[in-house]
């Protein structure tokens, strides 16, 4: 019973192993959805590719690094208009896009010369920028371009630059998760330990796995500044290339997104003995708990309590205003993976919202262990959901609002169900105390937006539609 074969999946019965319904009285440890597995032929996956996981999730966030995409121009599509990771230096990472723009002749005769000239051209055009990441893509991996050899040659000719290569073509894994993995492991093995940063506090940490979505990192940085904790490196929100080469200097690794970035935290513990502390940065209760744990680690508990009291005084009344109005809201979360387990209890505890369905694009079984432990009974937990499944699940659980990405968001909008961008946010940041009020506001506004009712009205009749009546 807990593993569910939806009606729409009758011709691809393997999907049953990917959809779990938590039921009272069942031992949830007897079931765990198959995940991080190859998408089943016949299902229209919402997943991204491995290159996407490396470049668009992690590398592209850096504020001082050229992101050279060695491939056709189409691989460079997602930039400022789909990604929302600003920086404090004028959003360099979102203003420019770099591609070797591979054409048929380069595929036939090899693209290494073109890559080399593109790297030099980019550095020449931006003389203040001395750091670069180079990504291979499907075609350049298939033809065997040796991008490491090219970057070594460029670095020998330009001793003031440093280049990191990410050999993770789109086909390399089952989802974007493979790209996270390749970048994490490549970085720790090739770049960490290469730069010594000035230490300005007796308390130092890395903050791992947040990507400054609409300012998340910058909001949390205010907390760390108030606590007197020096963040050696942000992996990678508002992050700098050389800071990430200094990660070995931190006393503590604080991990938010364990899925995209747990690898480097594990390796930092294994190779440098730096402890890994996992926290939830979304939600009042969770954020306070995370601050308390960090402060307890450093022995500065009183600073943490003062900060939490200050933030609660400022933001809790606003949160409570929304909680009163959102109580009982039925929410679906269809995002990448970790936000399922970060959000399900925080929206329940802090806002009175019930999460009735969750779908993960690239979560592993570890993520499903977490979310099933935290989530409610009667809730569906889906791995690699497809569009027909989303339609059926919507009929089954009737959500009031769905947090998901723009792809599924378009589907949801056509059904006139309120949708909030669960990846890039509507009006973030969403992390921290202030951020969770923003999330609550966006949820409230989405649910009460009169446009949805107007959009559902058939205006083809001759009778004039009274917009106010429809929206009421």
């Amino acid at each position, binding site marked *: 019973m807990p593993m569910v074969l939806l009606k729409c999946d009758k011709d691809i019965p393997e999907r049953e192993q990917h959809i779990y319904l938590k039921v009272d009285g069942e031992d949830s440890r007897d079931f765990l959805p198959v995940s991080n597995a190859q998408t089943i032929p016949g299902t229209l996956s919402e997943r991204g590719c491995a290159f996407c996981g490396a470049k668009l999730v992690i590398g592209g966030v850096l504020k001082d690094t050229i992101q050279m995409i060695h491939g056709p121009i189409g691989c460079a599509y997602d930039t400022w208009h789909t990604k929302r990771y600003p920086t404090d230096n004028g959003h360099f990472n979102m203003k420019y896009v770099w591609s070797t723009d591979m054409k048929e002749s380069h595929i036939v005769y090899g693209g290494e010369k073109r890559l080399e000239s593109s790297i030099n051209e980019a550095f020449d055009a931006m003389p203040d920028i001395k750091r670069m990441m180079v990504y291979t893509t499907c075609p350049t991996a298939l033809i065997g371009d040796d991008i490491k050899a090219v970057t070594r040659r460029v670095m020998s000719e330009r001793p003031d630059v440093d280049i990191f290569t990410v050999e993770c073509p789109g086909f390399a894994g089952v989802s974007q998760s493979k790209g996270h993995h390749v970048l994490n492991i490549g970085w720790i093995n090739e770049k960490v330990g290469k730069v010594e940063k000035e230490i300005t506090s007796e308390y130092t940490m890395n903050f791992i796995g947040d990507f400054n979505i609409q300012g998340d990192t910058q909001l949390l940085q205010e907390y760390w500044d108030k606590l007197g904790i020096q963040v050696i490196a942000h992996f990678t929100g508002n992050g700098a290339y050389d800071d990430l080469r200094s990660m070995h200097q931190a006393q503590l690794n604080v991990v938010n997104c364990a899925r995209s970035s747990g690898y480097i935290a594990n390796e930092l513990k294994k190779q440098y003995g730096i402890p890994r502390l996992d926290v939830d940065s979304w939600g009042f209760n969770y954020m306070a708990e995370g601050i308390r744990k960090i402060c307890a680690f450093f022995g500065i508990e009183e600073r943490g309590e003062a900060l939490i009291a200050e933030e609660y005084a400022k933001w809790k009344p606003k949160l409570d205003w929304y909680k009163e109005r959102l109580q009982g809201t039925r929410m679906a979360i269809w995002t990448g993976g970790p936000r399922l387990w970060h959000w399900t209890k925080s929206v329940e505890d802090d806002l009175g919202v019930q999460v009735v369905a969750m779908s993960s694009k690239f979560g592993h079984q570890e993520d499903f262990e977490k979310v099933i432990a*935290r989530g409610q009974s009667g809730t569906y937990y889906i791995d690699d959901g497809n569009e027909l499944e989303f339609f059926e699940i919507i009929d089954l659980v009737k959500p009031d609002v769905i947090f998901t990405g723009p792809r599924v968001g378009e589907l949801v909008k056509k059904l006139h169900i309120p949708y909030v961008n669960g990846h890039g946010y509507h009006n973030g940041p969403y992390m921290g105390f202030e951020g969770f009020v923003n999330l609550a506001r966006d949820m409230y506004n989405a649910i009460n937006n009169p446009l949805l009712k107007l959009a559902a009205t058939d205006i083809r009749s001759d009778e004039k539609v009274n917009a106010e009546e429809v929206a009421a």
Partner: protein
Amino acid sequence: MSEQVKQLVGYVQERCLWQFFSRSWDRQENIDGIMAAAEAMLSGAKPKRETPMEKLFYADALEMVKDFRERFPWVDALTPAEATTLIAGLKAEMIDLAITRSLNHELSHSLY
């Protein structure tokens, strides 16, 4: 499993990310360290806080024990011996749930 252990397991399952680390040895290390710190706190002893890992376990255990006391008032009435028995029961359950019976196929991979 006693009713008291069951209540604590329910809390840990819902609340604590350290039980879900990537590999079985990480989970074992966390369970061992955090339970030892929690036992010390509940028994009136001073938890170790010297090495980086001890500081980490202290931080995690501190929040957990504080929540135990808030959610389960009977915790304050435990004798040191009862606290030791209780934490031993919780530890056994956590090892069973997070490691022994876990269906997560990645737990035993040798690499991260």
